């Protein structure tokens, strides 16, 4: 009896519970952005509060984030699920996929409708001129220049197995960003690239998709992947999108997104809504990016100072420990920032979060602070060190009252260098969906649109200048006057 009442209470509570927070992720290309906006719209209609994290990265990053619960759902393609997530060579139906993913706590919505398969594209007139219609025709044209996205180069359903299947031996194959690749194709720097079949750029740039005559590419039906533990009402809302988007409609939404540079606006077309800008006007958007940017730079610099200063003090003394500290900081500095982010994302504590970006920036800020602190302290003349000791000051008092003030100029210069580097590097935080001024830069790069890039690049440059001026003011406040006077 008691348990029946308890069950009832739970049931009633569940039914009445206010809808929860849902986090939607998307990959770093236009169609995924638009699908992300679509999901946001239907979920908001269903009464959910939705956090949208656009352009978080490639398949593995999104999948990891979904598994770890950092996002609740994201749009994916059946072909990609089979090749990249389940790693099978067999073609799988959506039903097979659903059964396999269920074991991992992940659900799959019905197919949205369109098949966004990979394809190889060329300029229409160039293809006609060379008489290339299908992929096997490429065998006779090994000298064509091929520019592929890095993801396609590495995928199991990507370039290497494709060239094996078709027995292609192209001389010149290089990796290039997707949007930049279209520009390269347009100006003739490359002849061939990979594309998605619903890509708006295909029509826009008058390109042809080469016929996949050996049926290499699997089907890429769009679906949403979601965590099975999210509110069933959210799943129901998403399912409403199933079967409603054919190739033509998706291509039109993509084209609209690229034309207006506004993904929410494009998604609104789907509902036939009067376009409304979800993100407010440009000034508010830039303001939000700047705030996030400052947050990233400020937090990482703070950590850099708090941890770098003691390390620098330790590294100023001769001995092996100092060498270890300085060379470790040096090695960290040589890791490309993209690689560092990629290394940190799979670590459980970090994942796709501002913490990861802040930690990466903190690591980069260490070297200038540690090295300048160590050098500043080492440069203090022996006579001054002896005098401080001979007065009878305790070692700690020597450091705080004499050595650190004397080294303050060099130390502050190190902090300034770190701050300026961080303002620049923080733009990369957008790669893992954390936002900041990198967000417009990345989507601008993605859209091949200089205006959007400048919306991020100009404030970032101004911010760097501001930091520079700010520190000059700080110099005057912090550095003792006696060190600034000329003899």
């Amino acid at each position, binding site marked *: 009896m008691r348990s029946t009442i308890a069950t009832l209470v739970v049931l009633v509570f569940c039914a009445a519970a206010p809808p929860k927070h849902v986090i939607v992720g998307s990959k770093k290309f236009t169609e995924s952005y638009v699908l992300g906006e679509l999901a946001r719209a239907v979920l908001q209609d269903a009464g959910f509060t939705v956090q949208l994290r656009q352009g978080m990265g490639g398949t593995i990053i999104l999948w990891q984030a979904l598994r770890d619960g950092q996002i609740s759902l994201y749009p994916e393609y059946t072909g990609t699920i089979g090749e990249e997530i389940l790693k099978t060579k067999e073609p799988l139906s959506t039903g097979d996929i659903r059964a396999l993913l269920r074991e991992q706590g992940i659900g799959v919505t019905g197919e949205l409708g369109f098949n966004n398969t990979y394809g190889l594209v060329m300029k229409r007139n160039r293809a006609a001129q060379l008489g290339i219609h299908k992929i096997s025709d490429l065998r006779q044209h090994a000298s064509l220049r091929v520019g592929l996205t890095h993801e396609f180069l590495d995928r199991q359903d990507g370039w290497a197995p494709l060239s094996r299947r078709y027995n292609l031996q192209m001389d010149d194959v290089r990796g290039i960003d997707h949007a930049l690749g279209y520009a390269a194709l347009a100006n003739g720097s490359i002849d061939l690239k990979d594309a998605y079949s619903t890509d708006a750029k295909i029509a826009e740039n008058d390109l042809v998709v080469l016929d996949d005559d050996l049926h290499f590419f699997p089907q890429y039906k769009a679906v949403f992947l979601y965590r099975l533990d999210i509110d069933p009402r959210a799943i129901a809302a998403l399912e409403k999108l199933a079967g409603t988007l054919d190739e033509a409609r998706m291509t039109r939404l993509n084209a609209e997104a690229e034309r207006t540079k506004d993904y929410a606006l494009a998604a609104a077309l789907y509902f036939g809504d009067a376009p409304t800008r979800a993100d407010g006007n440009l000034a508010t958007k830039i303001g939000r990016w700047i705030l996030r940017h400052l947050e990233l730079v400020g937090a990482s610099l703070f950590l850099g100072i708090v941890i770098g200063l003691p390390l620098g003090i330790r590294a100023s003394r001769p001995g092996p420990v100092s060498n270890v500290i300085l060379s470790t900081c040096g090695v960290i500095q040589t890791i490309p920032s993209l690689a560092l982010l990629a290394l940190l994302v799979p670590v459980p504590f970090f994942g796709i979060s501002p913490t990861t970006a802040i930690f990466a920036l903190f690591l980069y800020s260490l070297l200038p602070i540690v090295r300048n602190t160590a050098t500043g302290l080492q440069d203090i*003349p022996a*006579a*001054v060190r*002896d*005098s*401080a*000791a*001979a*007065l*009878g*000051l*305790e070692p700690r*008092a020597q450091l705080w*009252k*004499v050595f650190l*003030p*004397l080294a*303050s100029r060099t130390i502050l210069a190190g902090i300034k260098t770190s701050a300026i580097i961080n303002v620049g590097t923080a733009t990369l935080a957008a790669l893992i969906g954390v936002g900041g001024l990198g967000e417009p830069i990345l989507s601008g790069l993605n859209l091949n649109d200089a205006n959007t890039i400048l919306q991020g690049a100009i404030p970032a440059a101004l911010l760097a200048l501001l930091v520079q001026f700010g520190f000059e003011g700080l110099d005057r406040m912090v550095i*003792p*006057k*006696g*060190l600034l*006077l*000329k*003899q």
Partner: protein
Amino acid sequence: MIELESVSKKFGTTIALHETDLSIDAGKTTVLIGSSGCGKSTILRLIIGLLEPTTGTIRIEGQRVSATSVLALRRRIGYVIQEGGLFAHLTAAQNVLLMAKHLKRPVAQMETRLRELCQLTHFPENGLQRYPVELSGGQRQRVSLMRALMLEPGVLLLDEPFGALDPMVRARLQEELKEIFERLRQTTVLVTHDMAEAAFLADRIVLLNEGRIVQSGTLDDLRSRPASPFVREFLNAQRVLATA
């Protein structure tokens, strides 16, 4: 009274000071003299604990210099070095008062002491707010001396205090210093390589060569009863004295 008992100092395989016994009289000025590398500065640095002896013990007024006693001992010793070793980020007054403030001495008492020291060292009071870079070499050494004397130490150690000054300033400071020594009657050890300076300031001269004490006594002792040919050679090399 400072006593060195079988004190030696090695840096790696280099011997800076061979086993040495030396007793420095209280209230007198003892000058350690010799050419560079003879070990005279090493003795000073051993006394104030900037170096640890390889063998032997050092006692200051009966108290042994050790890791635990060195902080308290240093506060009873004034130490002046060539070029002053002033802290560039502090004004003259802040340099002089640094230690007294650190020990939280009463402000009024510090102010009075600062004025006394200005008079004693002939340092103009309006220069107290200047930074070291704004002072002349002689003024810097005066500030350094004030800093050393601030806590009224029983022992004063001076390591080539006039080494970097031009001859006019140097002569004037030597005279002032002699006056100060006579007035304060502290136990003073001064290191120099200039025999004229030693003769002018010292109650007792200790001549060193290659890490050993060669002879100690008054200038007359050294001149009339040289302990070795080196003593005569060293005195003769100092042209001022040779012609005097």
